């Protein structure tokens, strides 16, 4: 009797599971036809909400949520259907991010995907999307090797890949009048898939223009002592220091330069200076004066939709700061939205059409117009930022500039 009861329970459970499975299938099929109205369109992403990249990960989630709210307020993505974001936490872990995207595709049966944060995590996550033939627009992940794999569904929603992040600034340096142009340069960099290629790109342009490289070294993230590097730089006395950094080491490096009493004429850093108050708080406001950096977004930008995005962001999350990573995530979602609206489908079997459309068209985003080559590399130019009087300003390109002035050197003693 007992055994019969157990068998019955098992059969019932199986029947329920099968029913649930069929239900999911129906959701997927219904999405393809675009007939059903009111049914939410599920957009899945896995973000580093905890662990090493938790700050940018959380900002990216905010960006996606602002987009979700904005699209739904406008009456939905297509056919009047609202968007529902399904966001998982990959704990800044490469294995978890793979498991998450697999689960989003097969278990949650999302209709569309959006990318995660950092090159490190997008590298494996984009492979999952590619295998499942789903469009994958990523808000971060500009390491060049991402685009050397011949992927057809991967698109990077910033202006340029890492190796071109500093192009505009490097060209500005090489175009300076002869007597103002630096003669020597140093390139210390963190061993990071974004920072390193950014520096290599800048070095290629500067050395072509005859600016001699006097120092080029890589250090690892687990080495907290940058005093040795500062001391080596002081001994070589380069005119310009180009530093490939993420946030923590970027701050530690500026502090080490100050301790070594070494002030190069110019200082360019990747990433770190775009962290706003967190950066100026860590090195001291007056120390920031004149530091150059590459950046994708500014809240003052006059790009279409930026004002509305900034207002909505502040309404939802408060505060004055709008993190660059939130803006990048919003822009990635805008790219996805543009493709879906233009092609008019979210069918999982027709996502190559979305990718093909992106390859052939330009999309207006809050970062400015974006367009891509066949491999999904963006073909634009990063903005160049500079800290001026304790405020991060955009100085190049002229069309996007928020300040008329470019301070020609690093003045760590303040604006004096």
């Amino acid at each position: 009797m007992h055994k019969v009861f157990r068998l019955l329970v098992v059969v019932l459970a199986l029947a329920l599971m099968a029913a649930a499975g069929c239900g999911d299938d129906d959701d997927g099929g219904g999405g393809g036809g675009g007939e059903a109205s009111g049914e939410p369109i599920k957009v899945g992403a896995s973000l580093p909400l905890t662990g090493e990249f938790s700050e940018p990960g959380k900002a990216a989630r905010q960006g996606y949520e602002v987009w979700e709210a904005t699209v739904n307020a406008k009456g939905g993505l297509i056919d009047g259907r609202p968007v529902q974001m399904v966001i998982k936490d990959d704990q800044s872990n490469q294995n978890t991010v793979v498991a998450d995207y697999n689960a989003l595709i097969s278990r949650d049966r999302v209709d569309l995907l959006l990318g995660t944060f950092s090159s490190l995590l997008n590298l494996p996550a984009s492979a999952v999307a590619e295998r499942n033939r789903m469009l994958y627009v990523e808000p971060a992940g500009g390491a060049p090797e991402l685009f050397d794999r011949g992927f057809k569904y991967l698109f990077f929603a910033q202006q340029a890949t890492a190796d071109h992040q500093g192009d505009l600034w490097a060209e500005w340096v090489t175009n300076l009048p002869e007597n103002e142009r630096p003669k020597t340069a140093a390139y210390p960099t963190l061993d990071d898939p974004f920072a390193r290629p950014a520096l290599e790109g800048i070095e290629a342009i500067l050395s072509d223009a005859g600016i001699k490289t006097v120092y080029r070294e890589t250090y690892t993230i687990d080495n907290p002592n940058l005093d040795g590097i500062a001391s080596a730089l002081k001994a070589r006395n380069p005119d310009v220091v180009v530093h490939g950094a993420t946030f923590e080491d970027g701050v530690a490096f500026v502090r080490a330069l100050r301790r070594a009493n070494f002030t190069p004429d110019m200082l360019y850093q990747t990433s770190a200076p775009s962290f706003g108050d967190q950066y100026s708080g860590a090195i001291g406001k007056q120390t920031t004066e004149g530091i150059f950096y590459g950046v994708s977004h500014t809240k003052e930008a006059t790009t279409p939709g930026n004002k509305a995005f900034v207002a909505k962001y502040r309404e939802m999350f408060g505060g004055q700061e709008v993190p660059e990573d939130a803006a990048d995530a919003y822009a990635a979602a805008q790219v996805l939205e543009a493709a879906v609206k233009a092609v008019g489908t979210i069918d999982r079997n027709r996502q190559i059409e979305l990718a093909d459309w992106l390859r052939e068209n330009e999309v207006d985003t809050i970062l400015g117009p974006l367009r891509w080559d066949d491999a999904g590399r963006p073909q634009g130019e990063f903005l160049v930022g500079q800290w001026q009087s304790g405020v991060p300003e955009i100085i190049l390109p002229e069309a996007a500039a928020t300040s008329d002035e470019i301070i020609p050197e690093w003045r760590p003693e303040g604006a004096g």
Partner: protein
Amino acid sequence: MTEFLQALILGLLIGGVYALLASGLTLIFGVMNVINIAHGAFLILAAFITWSLWRAIGLDPLAAIFALTPVMFAFGWLLYNATIRPIRRAPPAASVLLTFGLALFLEGIMGVIWGNTSHSVRPEYFAQSFEIGELFLPKAQVYGGLVAIVVLASLYLVLTRSWLGRAIRASAVNPQGAELVGVNAVSVAALTFAIGVASAGAGGAIASVLYPFLPGSHYQWIARLLGIIVLGGMGSLPGAVIGALCLGVAELMTVTYIGPEWATGVPYAFVFIVLLLRPQGILGTRLRQDVATA
């Protein structure tokens, strides 16, 4: 020559700070046989408290040491009685697991209180240096080194000149024997653990000026500090000082003459070679362990 001298000075200064950070770890191991994986988390906790004091009332990190050491001492004493005491007779692996758990717990708590963003304390001297000719001595590191000397000298005096010190050393060498002559081994262990955590308080205050930190920074520190006390000889205070100075100089020499990307690897290769030649570390003694519970 200037470059070599500069690297040597920076290495010794960094080594001094390392010695301060490692002193509590080696003390706790020497007396209690507990490998305190949470030591790095205690340092970061102290750094966060220093940061809060500095932000709220502008308290200088060096002055914060006076406030922090008693607080951390009390925290250590409570923590010992609440968590480590119940497992004091368990094999050492249990303490590794327990303190690792403590480290994770503290990391989570710090994340909730202060957030997972990078913090740094910036007193006036954080970016200044003393200059001697062409050489520079970063003030923060010099002060850190001086604090290290004061803390280590006091620890050494307590250990060698006071009754408590004799009780601590007696408990380390032979707990049963110490109890026979009237030493309360449990309360000595609690005091030792508290002193170890208090020294992390002083270390954290200094580290907060020298390095940006976030709750997860403790992993990077515990790895380095374990390397130092293994090199110096587990449980030996002078050994920890020598180990720390060696590691600091090895790191800076590597950055200067081999390349910064080797700065993590080469010092550990050095530790490895020393241990091949002297498995007990530079000043470690093998007898102590043999006698202890035989």
